[in-house]
């Protein structure tokens, strides 16, 4: 995924419909310009997550059976035309889809940030310890990592939720427990190469304790990797949470999690497609822009990771 320096030079004196212009435009949108994914992230994830309480047009849980199964506003053909009051339509119980999506953003953001914080902290700490100390500590930790990587992800999550019961906190716990190992593996590999560098040996000669070397000398050198990895993981976490919620093992009803909304719309796909399609589009846009942001950060911060 190398980015060429010439990409951003606007081809001069060419008509707007020429292939070069079009290619330049697609490059602008998909390769270099962070504007696109920043806008999507802000509009679909961050803004609604922060302000849904007073910007959402309706209460996400309020049922209005008289308005049930209203199509989106642009669909005026059926016997029940869309209205501006419910721009993206309503579901089987007459709940406003737009409001539910907006409140769902908060759930997605909360789950992914919490899972990121917990899983990332555990994973990074173990990765630092494993890579720095080596020997049996490394062997032990890496076998545990292998074990967690060998677990069938969704299946394990289903089992854990079956034992503890579905809730917001179970979802966060399950996702963190299942994803920390990826941080450990990546950070450890990084630490192994940093450990061999001169400045670590000199710090040791200067009498630094192991803890000090890890915190002050090794960790700052893996921060870039960590940021890139964490960004790319946000998409994975959102997808995983949505999948679990879809299967009924994530966020319990009636909370408007995106996965739950898609599951609600599944049985009505023939008559009311918007119930399932709209929240799915929200998931897609958020994960897509998160992945684009991760790719972009990787190119800027840590070109070594490109092969991953």
């Amino acid at each position, binding site marked *: *995924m190398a980015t*060429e320096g010439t990409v951003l030079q606007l081809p001069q004196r060419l008509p707007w419909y020429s*292939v070069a212009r079009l*290619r330049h435009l*697609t*490059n602008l949108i*998909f390769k270099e310009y962070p504007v696109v994914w920043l806008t999507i992230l802000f509009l679909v994830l961050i803004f609604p997550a922060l302000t849904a309480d007073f910007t959402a047009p309706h209460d996400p849980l309020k049922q209005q059976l008289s308005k049930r199964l209203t199509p989106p506003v642009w669909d005026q053909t059926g016997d029940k035309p869309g209205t501006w009051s419910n721009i993206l339509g309503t579901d089987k119980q007459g709940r406003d889809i737009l409001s539910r999506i907006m409140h769902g953003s908060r759930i997605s953001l909360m789950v992914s940030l919490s899972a990121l914080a917990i899983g990332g902290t555990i994973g990074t700490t173990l990765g630092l310890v494993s890579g720095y100390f080596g020997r049996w500590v490394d062997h032990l930790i890496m*076998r*545990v990592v*292998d*074990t*967690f990587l*060998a*677990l*069938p*992800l*969704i*299946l*394990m999550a*289903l*089992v*854990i*939720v*079956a*034992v*503890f019961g579905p809730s917001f906190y179970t979802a966060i716990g399950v996702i963190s427990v299942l994803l920390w190992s990826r941080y450990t593996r990546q950070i450890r590999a990084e630490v192994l190469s940093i450990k061999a560098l001169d400045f670590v040996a000199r710090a040791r000669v200067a009498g630094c304790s192991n803890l000090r070397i890890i915190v002050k000398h090794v960790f700052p050198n893996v921060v870039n990797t960590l940021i890139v990895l964490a960004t790319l993981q946000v*998409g994975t976490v959102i*997808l995983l949470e*949505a*999948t679990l919620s*879809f*299967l*009924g*093992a994530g966020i319990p009803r009636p909370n408007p999690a995106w*996965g739950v909304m*898609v599951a609600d*719309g*599944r049985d009505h*796909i*023939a008559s009311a*497609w918007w119930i*399932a*399609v709209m929240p*799915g589009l929200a*998931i*897609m846009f958020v*994960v*897509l822009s998160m*992945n*684009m942001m991760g790719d972009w950060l990787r190119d800027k911060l840590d070109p070594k990771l*490109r*092969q991953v």
Partner: protein
Amino acid sequence: MQRYIIIRLIQSVFTLIGVSIIVFSLARLSGNPLDVLLPDEADDETFIRISELWGLNDPWYIQYFTFVKNASRGEFGPSFKWQGRTAMELVILHLPATLQLASISIGVSVLLAVPIGVMSAVKKGTMLDTVGKLIALLGQSLPSFWLAIVLIWIFAVQLGWFPTSGRGGFSNMVLPAVALGWFSVASFMRLTRSSMLNVLDSEYIKLARIKGLPEWKVVWKHGLKNAAIPPLTVFGAIVVGQMTGSVTIETVFAWPGVGLLALQAVNARDYQVIQAVTMFISVLFIGMNLLIDILYAYIDPRIRFN
């Protein structure tokens, strides 16, 4: 080579022990394991039978050995949801459907991903490359369960080309295979492309060109052969990813495979079946990785001396 195989074998055994500890302790983490192991409506007789099977009155380390002993013989106890069958029987009964779906979707994804990946590496920076990148990005971002529903909506409900669900002839397989394979197309293509880019930069490709070989031979024979190793290594992960991904896809399409079995077992709290499925898929994954690592070391001598 022998040394390498033995080390990898020992590592795999440790991983297997780790998985068995996790599956074992999950049922026992929340107080009385019988509450988890048995559904609410189980009678006294099954209570006694299951306690005996898992040795639930013994200390925990003896319980663990009983678990490993039973599991290694494929004995996970009787199912409660499906009366009269053992858990392992059920897994084996549902396996062909999953394997059928997985092999078709893997086959199709390889057939799609490799040419697109190679071409987007060869024609780097063109429209084709951009389209390839877009597919890769979308593949990692589309939730598979949502894609499955949208496919049903468009191709089964609106156009009526394929049936909406169930297992049957070829037409039943198209939609689930596409929904399941979408993700692996993306990751396969990405890997093929980046590995192909590295290879095309190398000296022997230049030599092949200087020799005057036709371009298609340079790309598809000399290039692809050398670029195939990195995509091969993730093959195992993708195969098992399809087995777990099948939980959602099989649920949406009511495809009677292991994934659907797992979800039904979880919903019915049929823990014997859950244990059987989890252990089975983990063993498959570990075995697959072991096999691929050995193959990899066989193909690429640098690995075994490291």
